[in-house]
């Protein structure tokens, strides 16, 4: 992916920022090796603990700033789960909160220069996406038995169209985890790669003002994308959960 330009020997390695490196030494990356992925996931965990555990330490009726941030996020996700999945979906709130917080904090921490972005890795988002898919599918069959399959059988549609719609519905159902995970990884990876490309151009005196302005603009966009992708991932999880709990249209 490295692009080379003749003038000034400009070299871009926009994807080098995603290389997984061991934290200690240069050994091979085994499944248990603490790497930069581990480090930034750990920082995300610590940040979450700082906001939600240390922030709410006072249990104040009139919240401190940190506590009110935690309460806002809590209220936001709680309301989303309740609105989308209904009252019986509220017991899955901690799982959805976990997903949302991991993605949100990983996305925002990845915007710190020199940081690493775990949510840009397909392996990470695929685990999240397929995890949601598998859990929701199992939950759907456990809760509804075989009648979960009525999710694919549109009883409102004309009888002739129903089998065709059913095939389309089944395909779209199985595409869900793929789009769910690639959407997140693709957005984050693309944003960070573009930032890196602009940073490469900034080394060129002639275009550096434009490149730096571009970095600022793209960075602003990435701040939005980081929040929006966390929101989108979470609300889609809620929608899939709703389909599992109430498969009848």
């Amino acid at each position, binding site marked *: *992916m*490295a692009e080379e330009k003749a003038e000034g020997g400009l070299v871009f*390695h926009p*994807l*080098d920022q*995603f*290389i*997984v*490196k*061991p934290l200690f030494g*240069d*050994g*091979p*990356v*085994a*499944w*248990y*090796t*603490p*790497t930069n*992925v*581990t480090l930034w*996931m*750990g920082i*995300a*965990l610590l940040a*979450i*603990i700082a906001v*939600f*555990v240390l922030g*709410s330490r006072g*249990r*104040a*009726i009139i*919240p401190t700033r940190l*506590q009110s941030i*935690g*309460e806002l996020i*809590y*209220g936001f996700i709680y309301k989303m789960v309740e609105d989308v999945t209904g009252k019986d979906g509220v017991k899955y*709130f*901690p*799982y959805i*909160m*976990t*997903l949302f*917080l*991991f993605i949100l904090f990983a996305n925002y921490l990845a915007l710190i220069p020199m940081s690493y972005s*775990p949510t*840009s*890795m*397909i*392996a*990470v988002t695929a*685990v*999240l996406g397929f995890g949601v898919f598998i859990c929701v599918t199992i939950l759907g069959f456990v809760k509804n038995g075989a009648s979960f399959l009525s999710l694919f059988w549109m009883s409102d549609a004309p009888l002739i169209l129903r089998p065709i719609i059913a095939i389309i519905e089944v395909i779209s159902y199985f595409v869900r985890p793929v789009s769910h995970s690639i959407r997140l*990884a693709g957005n984050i*990876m693309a944003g960070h790669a573009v930032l890196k490309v602009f940073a490469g151009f900034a080394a060129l005196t002639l275009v550096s003002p434009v490149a730096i302005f571009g970095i600022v603009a793209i960075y602003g966009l990435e701040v939005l994308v980081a929040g929006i992708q966390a929101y989108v991932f979470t609300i889609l999880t809620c929608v899939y959960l709703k389909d599992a709990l109430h498969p009848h249209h």
Partner: protein
Amino acid sequence: MATETTEAAVGACVDAGGSALGMPQLCADWMPNQIFWLVITLIAIYFVMSRIALPRIGAVLAERSGTITNDIAAAEELKTKAAEAEAAYDKALLDARAEANKIVAEAKAEIQAELDVELQKADAEIAAKTAESEAAIAEIRDSAKQNVVAVAKDTAKELVAAMGGSADAKTITAAVNARMKG
């Protein structure tokens, strides 16, 4: 870092210069590591959230909404009380006004009654005084009449005597009385 060690260390996904070969996202060598640490992180976040943070924040929010509800209820109660107090005040004012009117009317009636009694008394006194005066006048008139008769008799007798005649008292009296009647 030396090229050889780098290549030996990170395997097929990194070239000799330490740059990525292809997309690092698709390097199968690194995937188990990411998945392992992701699962660890998610489990850690889940336990922190479900055991500590979420119950605590939920309790704080519930407590806060409870406090707000209580405060609103208390305010409502106070408002009702204030309205009651105002109604009582208005009623007291109305009562006082009615009482005042009653007292005024009573006083007026009393004064009127007293006045009537006094007037009657005065009328009676005036009537009595009038009657008395009339009696006195009648007496005076009677006595005047008698005096006139006596004077007339005497005068008549003297006149008769002066004329050279004599008349007895009986005849003169009869004549005077006849004249008086006429």
